[in-house]
């Protein structure tokens, strides 16, 4: 009986934990405007994420299953190949730590110390389909692991799963000082041969921004994910064979809300953002602080040489 209770508790705890890193959500991915031709940017974004509550399949918070801390560094390069087509490549590195009762451990990294690893790479292409009062930019993306990282335990680094994503960003102005943009995407997760789960997920976010003073843009946003299949947190009657490596298969849905400020400059942008999970199923209650540094290059006009003087009529 005691052993059974431990197994169930392990499920409840573990079914939630891997999703923290698997989804390590950016503040917002909405991007309705594509980087123009010849322009680009190199960005480094850091996220400090802390979670003290595990959220059940019914949305109930449980504070008794330890707490996770994550430090994420995401490096991204964006380049405008044409005036309508841009490409993006990003790579995530993260460090995870779990602190809790020893009986709630369920992975080799749950030692109470930080462990680090490179995680996933993401390659995307974005096309500026519509420009004007409303801007539309569809995109396609591939994401997948770059190392054979650990997927077990509270301190798991992620799902270790390939995904193809189709989506679009939409945005425009709301007056002279404000803008909005929104993003929707559908991710096709690769099938796990031995399991019957459909781990596809739908993501969406919306962002409002307003220019304040000479240098700052203040933004607020909400971002969410919806899944309709996968393991659910709680008493388990099947799929017990996934106990040791279940984090990859959890059905997680969440809504995060946050805001922040950006300082936009001709060559460098700096931003600080915070967000928190406001509702979730089979997930974690996250609180995060995100910083970003972006160095931009290109963007000059194309100057052509003078034409030869036309011959004069005699």
């Amino acid at each position, binding site marked *: 009986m005691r052993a059974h209770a431990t197994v169930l508790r392990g499920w409840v705890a573990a079914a939630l934990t891997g999703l923290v890193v698997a989804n390590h959500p950016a503040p917002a991915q909405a*991007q*309705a*405007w*594509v*980087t*123009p031709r010849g*322009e*680009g*940017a190199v960005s480094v974004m*850091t996220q*400090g994420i802390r979670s003290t509550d595990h959220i059940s399949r019914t949305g109930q918070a449980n504070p008794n299953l330890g707490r996770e801390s994550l*430090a994420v560094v995401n490096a991204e390069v*964006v380049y405008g190949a044409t*005036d309508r087509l*841009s490409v993006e490549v990003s790579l995530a590195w993260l460090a995870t730590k779990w602190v809790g009762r020893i009986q709630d451990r369920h992975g080799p990294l749950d030692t109470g110390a930080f462990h680090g690893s490179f995680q996933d790479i993401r390659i995307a292409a974005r096309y500026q389909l519509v*420009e*004007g009062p409303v*801007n539309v930019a569809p995109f396609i993306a591939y994401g997948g692991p770059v190392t054979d990282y650990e997927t077990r335990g509270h301190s798991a680094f992620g799902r270790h799963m390939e995904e193809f994503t189709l989506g679009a960003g939409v*945005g425009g*102005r709301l007056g*002279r*000082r404000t*803008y909005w*943009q929104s993003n929707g995407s559908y991710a096709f997760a690769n099938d796990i041969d031995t399991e019957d789960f459909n781990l596809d997920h739908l993501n969406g976010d919306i*962002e409002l*921004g307003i*220019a304040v*003073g*000479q*240098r*700052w*843009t203040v*933004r607020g946003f909400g971002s969410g994910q919806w899944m309709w299949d996968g393991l659910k947190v709680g008493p388990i009657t099947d799929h017990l064979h996934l106990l040791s490596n279940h984090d990859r298969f959890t059905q997680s849905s969440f809504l995060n809300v946050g805001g922040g400020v*950006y*300082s*936009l*400059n*001709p060559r*460098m*942008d*700096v*931003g*600080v953002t915070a967000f928190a999970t406001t509702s979730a199923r089979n997930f974690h209650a996250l609180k995060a602080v995100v*910083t970003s*540094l*972006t160095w*931009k290059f290109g*963007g*000059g*006009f*194309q*100057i*052509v*040489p*003078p*034409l030869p003087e*036309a011959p004069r009529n005699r």
Partner: protein
Amino acid sequence: MRTTGSLLLTVLLATAWAVDLTACGDKFLRIGRSVRYGRYAAAYPASIVVYGPRNSVPARVADLAATLKRAGHRAVVVTNAAALAAALASGSVDLVLTGLAQAEDVVARAKTAPSRPDIVPVIFEGSAADEQAAEAISTCRIALPGQHRNDALSEIDHKMELRSAARAR
């Protein structure tokens, strides 16, 4: 972590308080540009005539009109005085972009045009004398080759803001 946080905060504050070298339309960088990666949307969409006779500075900027249109302006390129006169006679022109060599003529024509368009000089590798000449025409200008497209667009937004304010009075 504390050290990293302090470093980021220092960079953030230094950036926020850095001396601004593009003073004219600089604030429109914040307004006109999307948060990430720089595509600019005009805060004051305008009707703009680019006066680009053969080998003039505006004529040598291959993507000038396209950049204006992408930002949301209505831009027309004219290459001779007759076409300029016809465009100005339409009565809907807000701004004329011109090289310094043509500026005197353009300023004179603008004064008699129905919409009284404002002038934005376009300078290429300008000397101190060129800068002074441009300053005499307008506080806002496009200075090439070094100026970022977004900076040029923010100059135009600033000029339009001044024009709107003057018309409101």
